[in-house]
């Protein structure tokens, strides 16, 4: 268990677990509504994971990330869970902030659904600590986003190089260092 578990009182953890389904549904809805309304309808309704890979990635993503936050945030593990969603949003029609901003929706969702109880039960301090873990998740998402963007540029560069280099090499236009040391 990570550090957050120590910060999470049993009461806050219990509250979050009790409201898990409602929180996840709301978070999922907010994420898919970052797409145009026709698309959001499709992402919500199509359940087949192969017909709707984006919807599947979002649904699985919010569930797994929420559970990871409750478990305590392992950077590597959280990165693996974030990757499918970020990998998709990094190429879609989003600005960088839009691509990873969905992480922070979780704060809004929790405040909306259990905010009152948090205040009533005097759990604000624990909740602020939980929120800072959500911020950490946002930073991890930013790293993944950048890796995805760099990967796109790398693929572009490699494709260009391979197409031309291999053509030149096969056409015998490139002089390479021979394997035989005597010929070097």
């Amino acid at each position: 268990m990570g550090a957050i578990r120590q910060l999470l009182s049993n009461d806050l953890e219990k509250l979050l677990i009790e409201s898990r389904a409602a929180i996840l549904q709301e978070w999922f809805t907010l994420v898919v509504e970052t797409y145009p309304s026709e698309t959001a309808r499709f992402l919500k309704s199509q359940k087949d994971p192969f017909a709707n890979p984006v919807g599947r990635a979002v649904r699985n993503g919010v569930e797994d990330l929420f559970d990871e936050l409750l478990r305590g945030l392992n950077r590597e593990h959280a990165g693996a869970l974030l990757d499918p969603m970020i990998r998709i949003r990094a190429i879609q029609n989003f600005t960088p902030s839009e691509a990873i901003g969905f992480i922070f929706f979780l704060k809004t969702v929790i405040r909306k659904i259990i905010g009152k109880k948090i205040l009533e039960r005097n759990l604000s301090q624990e909740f602020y600590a939980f929120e800072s873990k959500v911020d950490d998740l946002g930073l991890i998402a930013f790293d993944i986003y950048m890796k995805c963007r760099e990967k796109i540029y790398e693929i572009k560069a490699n494709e260009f190089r391979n197409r031309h280099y291999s053509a030149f090499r096969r056409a015998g236009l490139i002089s390479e260092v021979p394997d035989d040391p005597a010929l070097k």
Partner: protein
Amino acid sequence: MADELPKPEELIDVEHVPPITGWMDTPVEIRKGMYCYAGNPKSLETLGAPNPRQWNPTDEDWKLPDNWKEIVFEGLRERLDKFRSFKVFMDICVRCGACADKCHFFIGSGDPKNMPVLRAELIRSVYRNDFTKAGKILGRLAGARPMTLDVLKEWWYYLFQCSECRRCSVFCPYGIDTAEITIIGREILNLLGLNIDWIATPVSNCYRTGNHLGIQPHAFKDMLEFFVDDIEEVTGVRVEPSFNRKGAEILFITPSGDVFADPGTYTAMGYMILFHYLRDLGLDITWSTYASEGGNFGFFTSHETMKRLNAKMYYEAKRLGVKWILGGECGHMWRVIHQYMDTMNGPADFLEEPVSPITGTRFTNAKSTKMVHIAEFTADLIYHKKLNLDPSRNDHLKVTFHDSCNPSRGMGMLDEPRYVLQNVCNNFYEMPSNTIREQTFCCGSGSGLNAGEDMELRMMGGMPRANAVHFVKEKYDVNMLACVCAIDRAALPALMDYYEPEVGVTGLHELVANALILPGEKKKTTNLRGEPLLGMEDEDAE
């Protein structure tokens, strides 16, 4: 009270939900990574294509002729008269939505204008406005809108975000083929010189030198001769391809991409090895350095351009005096051959109905076109036990098969490649049923979209395919994606690199050649890629 807590979104004024506007009121935004560069004017000039000039899609001024609206109107009118299918497709759509979520570009991009129904509406709305009574009278109420510069830009942007894969048409209860709408739309755009360079320059190259890459005959021959050396290094056998040989029984034509770009080059070597193996069994085949392209990017330009490029196949077959044509692994090449060639440039009365010289099998499916797909040819060889195969040579691979859109949906070739795969490798796993065969997802780069500058578009379009690959990789540890299309072989490595970096890409005949036991071969320790063969150290391949 919860209200007393500051809401994070209040800290910065950011709206996360896109504005809700009707599609007609959502202006086109030409986004980097989603479009290909404009056609090189030199290429357009070579083809005698309209309006050659330097232009940039992100510029306000697209340098159109003054009467561009008239050209579009006349272009539409002419095609509505000429192509009954186009007229019917304009009229009969009831907007049921069955196609809406079937497009890989919609699924991957989330852009509603990539729903096939909406992509077609981009043109239909103008058709209604200018060619239907309801549209003329009721205007927008009848789904009509006048042609404007913004509409034209929207056409260009989205018609080059359709790979003409026809997956949507499988689900349309009326049988509307949205690819044909894209084809006509692109044809009209070409009347204004609105093309992309990834199509225009290959077409121009093919027109001049016989292949998309612009390789001249001597260089094409040199390339294949380099392969002869590579093959000898791996197998110890020196194959002897023949070129432009008059009187050969069969002419072989394949996409030129396989001659220059990895991993297609290994597929090209595969053909050469197979032909060498079959020589003693009676195969009399020649390559052509003039008809050196199976693909046809003219298909993505206009019917006329497609016809001009395709004609060289029959002309070369006639010049060489062959009996029939064997075609390599390609995608759109086969749609052109199967659905257009015979009526565009045929009938090829000077050719004969193809008969395999090895098995005697008569390819009645190619009775009219006189052209056989190599997967059919090889499947027949295997069925008649004519190939001495050791599938364990591919044991390091766990293979899945990507049905290329055109061979599967365009010509119904679904089982032959699978039959070949199951005989040349021991580990073959299918992807989920709604992602293969006639429901196959496009590679995301078809119809001339496999450029570098539109990489985001390609990654979005290919995402549903990559998602299915991910499934078999997790479940069966799949590490190789096989296909029968040269664009796939060029495009899928990038897609895998982004989504599933541990999965490679191969052509079918690379696997065939690796499994094939060649008479006189040396003890093989590597495959064609130079990768070590598992467990072959102790075996005597002879």
